């Protein structure tokens, strides 16, 4: 009797700590949201006196004022439009490019692949001015579609990389069978390959969704009209020249994160499953 008991305690201590560490980490991952929410319920002077204490009352004043006094809903609509269209285009365009880069070994293939990978090394702040000058001269600045260009272009490298390596892990047999059946090039791609790459396309879509939704610098520089403003830029308006109303700003941050969080946690299980199924298989 004694022996197995000993074994259990000897093994269960590290197991307990492993579980504990994992739980602590997970708690730390949601802590920011809880803290932001707690702070957003405070008044400005309450927050100034202690930023870590619990709010004195459940006061939604900040949310109500954002909803009624600012154009945050318009900004969210803009962000949403940019995000949905960009992500859709990124998925299709990078799928097409990644597919041929993965399946066909033509001359210049490696050059083109590396050419795309270069994009991951570019600090965007370095290119803001040249890019604005270029967009302005081509008449591409300040339209509803302006931001789609950088979002799509800068989303391509990582997307192509992920899809390329995933396609490489899919057996070719199905495509060959389709070709023998007389399917043309594009019919094979869309009817046979596209459905097979579901998980990785979902991964790409998720990564890009959040990247585009949160993007700030391009949105600040490339569009100037209020009706085109996106959420991250809209948030800067909560800062005055010499004052910041932190609780109100936090309410703004949460307000705009809310739809995205809802989406994430509602579909979280499926999102992570398809991401795990889709991420780089080397």
């Amino acid at each position, binding site marked *: 009797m004694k022996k197995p008991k000993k074994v259990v305690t000897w093994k269960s201590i590290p197991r307990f700590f492993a*579980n504990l560490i*994992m*739980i602590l*980490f*997970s708690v730390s*991952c949601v802590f920011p949201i809880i*803290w*932001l929410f707690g702070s957003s319920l405070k008044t400005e002077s309450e927050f100034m006196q202690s*930023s*870590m204490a619990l709010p004195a009352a459940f006061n939604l004043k900040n949310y109500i004022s954002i909803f009624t006094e600012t154009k945050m809903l318009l900004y969210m609509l803009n962000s949403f439009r940019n995000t949905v269209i960009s992500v859709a285009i990124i998925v299709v365009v*990078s799928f*097409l*490019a990644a*597919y*041929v880069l993965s399946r*066909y*070994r*033509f001359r210049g293939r490696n050059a*083109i692949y590396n*050419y795309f990978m*270069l*994009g*991951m*090394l*570019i*600090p965007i*702040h*370095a*290119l803001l*001015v*040249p*890019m604005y000058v*270029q967009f302005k001269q081509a008449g591409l600045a300040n339209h509803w579609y302006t931001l789609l*260009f950088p979002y*799509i*272009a*800068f989303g*391509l490298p*990582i997307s192509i990389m992920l899809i390329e390596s995933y396609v490489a892990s899919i057996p070719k047999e199905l495509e060959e069978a389709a070709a023998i059946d007389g399917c043309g*090039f*594009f019919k094979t*791609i869309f009817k046979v390959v596209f459905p097979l790459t579901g998980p990785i396309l979902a*991964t790409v879509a998720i990564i890009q969704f*959040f990247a585009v939704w*949160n993007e*700030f610098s391009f949105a600040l520089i490339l569009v100037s009209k209020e009706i085109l403003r996106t959420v*991250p830029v809209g948030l800067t308006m909560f800062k005055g020249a010499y004052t910041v109303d932190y609780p109100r700003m936090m309410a703004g*941050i949460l307000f705009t994160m809310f739809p*995205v*969080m809802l989406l994430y946690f509602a579909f979280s*299980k499926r*999102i*992570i499953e398809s*991401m*795990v*199924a889709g*991420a*780089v*298989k*080397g």
Partner: protein
Amino acid sequence: MKKSKKQYAMKSDIKWGIIICLLPALLIYTYVVVVPIFKAFYLSLYNWSGGAKMSFVGLKNYSILLKDTAFWDSFANNIWITILCVIGQIGIAFIFSALLSARFMKLKSIHRVVAYFPSTISAVVVGFVWMFIFNYDYGLINSLLRAVGLDKLASAWLDNPATIILIVSIPLIWQYIGYYMVIIMAAMTSIDTSIYEVAEIDGASGIQRALKITLPLIKSSLLVATMLCIAGNMKIFDHIYVMTNGGPGTSSMVMALDVYKTTFIKNRFGYASAMSIAILILSLLLVGGVRLLVMRPWKKEEN
């Protein structure tokens, strides 16, 4: 990789298919990403403060840059952050992924979902929240330390130039652990479970299995993760900008922040462009170098 004759003698519809598939990506990528790089290179040959007056100076901006110790200090900071992040992000992600594949772990699916969540938050918000966590007076860390009587350990975390790089790396590591966990878990699921069963029968412990079986089998995924990590950290900006603004002094200054300040505060567009080109070249060298360093031994192993 072998190029058979058959593949070169492509049918013309495949040829056109390839072109049509690549064209949209190439066009938009070239126009938006690559052309501005050329433009930046062009600007880097000038002294330009933004107005109509531009004076050609040749490669002078680059020769100044070579001697600009502030820039090279920023570069060194980038390197340190990158090293810390490769170890921290990928290392911890590997341990967590291995743990989550163990039978004794509870709440696995919740952990998976929650761990990725920070990756979905914008870098600015992450920096903002951590700024308050590190706060000296009422920050979370110091509050906890003081609560358990360790007042002496409470310190102004973001004010010590000697440790600032380590401190600003923590939020970075924390945010992206989930991201790399996804990559590593994906690679792990593709390992044949029967290998583990055999090892277990042979009496290998969990740690032995993780190090001797899992690690070698997912090394190519780890390489990809490392490359992503290097590329991401060479252009790191938002976190640092929010948490320290490059300070105290310039002790947490990174290259992208240096470019930003040179452009938008000092209005030296020509010089800032030279810095941007330098960042690109340095990143290329680093990524290429690491690839070579890692790939060489592998190829030898395989032979």
